[in-house]
């Protein structure tokens, strides 16, 4: 098993009010089998052993499905591998002596809490504004009572694959949340269950997105390239159609 020594430049920031700065570390003994977050765990062990404060970063499932991990690695959200969340990125994609720059997701809508951890509750507020369907209580409806076409189901499922990590915002030159909001609006707009609240949902979610200080989408499509789930910007086009229909209805 080959081991690497890495030079890491990591964003350190005490709290939201602190200006923060990049701090350099040298980490020997990195196994190619480690995930990126495991590499950071090892770095933290080293920092703690030397009497320092560990680097704070978000993570949870480490299986690529929860959307908690973040990080901009060498300028790319979730690092260099396509359709891969940071937790699923392995150190075999780096080589001995590499210099890796690690920064938090940067956006007005994602203020830094500490180090690499950002507050993504703006996404929760966008969801609360309309990212739900209201259903009557009672028994579950019959399985085939509401027909959904295969095509609509597939597209809705593709949109629903969004794990809400926010890499789209981090990668966007404008810090726009259009891919996230587009995916969330699309997953409901494509299905009959989402139809009754369709117009209101599109309008409220878009208005909330703007209110949170996210930028305007200028179609760079960088979001799609970094999305761990490969969500298409077709969903952004759909969001615009839905919003336009909502405001003229």
């Amino acid at each position, binding site marked *: 098993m080959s081991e690497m020594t890495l030079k890491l430049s990591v964003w350190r920031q005490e709290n939201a009010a602190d200006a923060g700065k990049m701090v350099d570390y040298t980490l020997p003994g990195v196994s190619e089998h480690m995930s990126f977050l495991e590499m950071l765990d090892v770095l933290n062990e080293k920092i703690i052993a030397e009497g320092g404060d560990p680097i704070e970063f978000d993570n949870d499932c480490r299986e690529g499905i929860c959307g908690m991990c973040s990080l901009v690695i060498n300028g790319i959200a979730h690092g260099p591998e396509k359709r891969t969340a940071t937790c699923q990125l392995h150190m075999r994609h780096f080589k001995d002596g590499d210099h890796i720059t690690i920064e938090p997701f940067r956006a007005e809508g994602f203020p830094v809490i500490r180090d690499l951890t950002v507050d993504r509750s703006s996404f929760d507020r966008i969801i609360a504004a309309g990212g739900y369907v209201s259903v009557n209580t009672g028994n579950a409806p019959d399985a085939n009572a509401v027909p959904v076409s295969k095509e609509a189901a597939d597209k809705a499922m593709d949109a629903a694959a969004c794990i809400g990590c926010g890499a789209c915002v981090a990668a966007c030159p404008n810090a726009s949340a259009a891919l996230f909001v587009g995916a969330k609006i699309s997953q409901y707009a494509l299905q009959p269950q989402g139809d009754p609240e369709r117009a209101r949902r599109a309008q*409220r979610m878009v208005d909330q997105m703007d209110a949170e200080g996210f930028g305007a989408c200028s179609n760079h499509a960088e979001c799609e390239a970094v999305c761990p789930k490969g969500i298409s910007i077709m969903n952004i086009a759909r969001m615009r159609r839905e919003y336009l229909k909502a405001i003229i209805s």
Partner: protein
Amino acid sequence: MAASTSVSNAFRSTIVKKILMSLTGLGLVIFVLGHLIGNLSLLFGPEPFNLYSHKLMSLGPLLWVIEIGLVAFFLIHAWNGISVSRHNRRSRPVRYAKTGDAGGPSKKSLSSVSMIFTGIILLVFLVIHVATFKYGAYYTTVIDGVEMRDLYKLVYQKFHDPLYVFGYTGVMILLGFHLRHGFWSAFQSLGTNHPRYSGPIYTIGVVLAIVLAIGFIAIPLYTYFN
């Protein structure tokens, strides 16, 4: 469900701003295309060009409608572009120390990230351009017994001024850059994205950008070197 947002609110939405930019932008593409086709008459000497420009100037009230429309299109396009760009700068107050390109399906390019810069230069150019030709020296000529403006003479003079010719050429390259991202982006901002048509629209945008840039560059260079 009726719209809960007022119309004035909708115009503040980033989506509506981009829709306005798309509609005006596509309108301006049609204008620029027409402008190029008209300008090609320059290649055939003074008479065809002067007759063409005389015909345009003789449109009377229709010309006024077109001109006011064009000014409105440019203003709406530029105003919203600047507004959106300022909004976007505020959306990332702390910049990245290191930036990268994710590649793959990304369409981020020099052209897409420089829209505001190419746009502002085009706007400044536009003012100079209109001042130079529309409000420039008024020579007259007589063709078939009709006295008309000799715009060809003015164009000929300007297109023999190296500063003007090469400045113009540079700006037209920037026009190409602006359209390379702008054309397909307008369709995407209008909410049109289709697995079958989006690819061709993107390609048409690239071709259009190259054709327009080369077309507009060819005329002054041809005049200059002949």
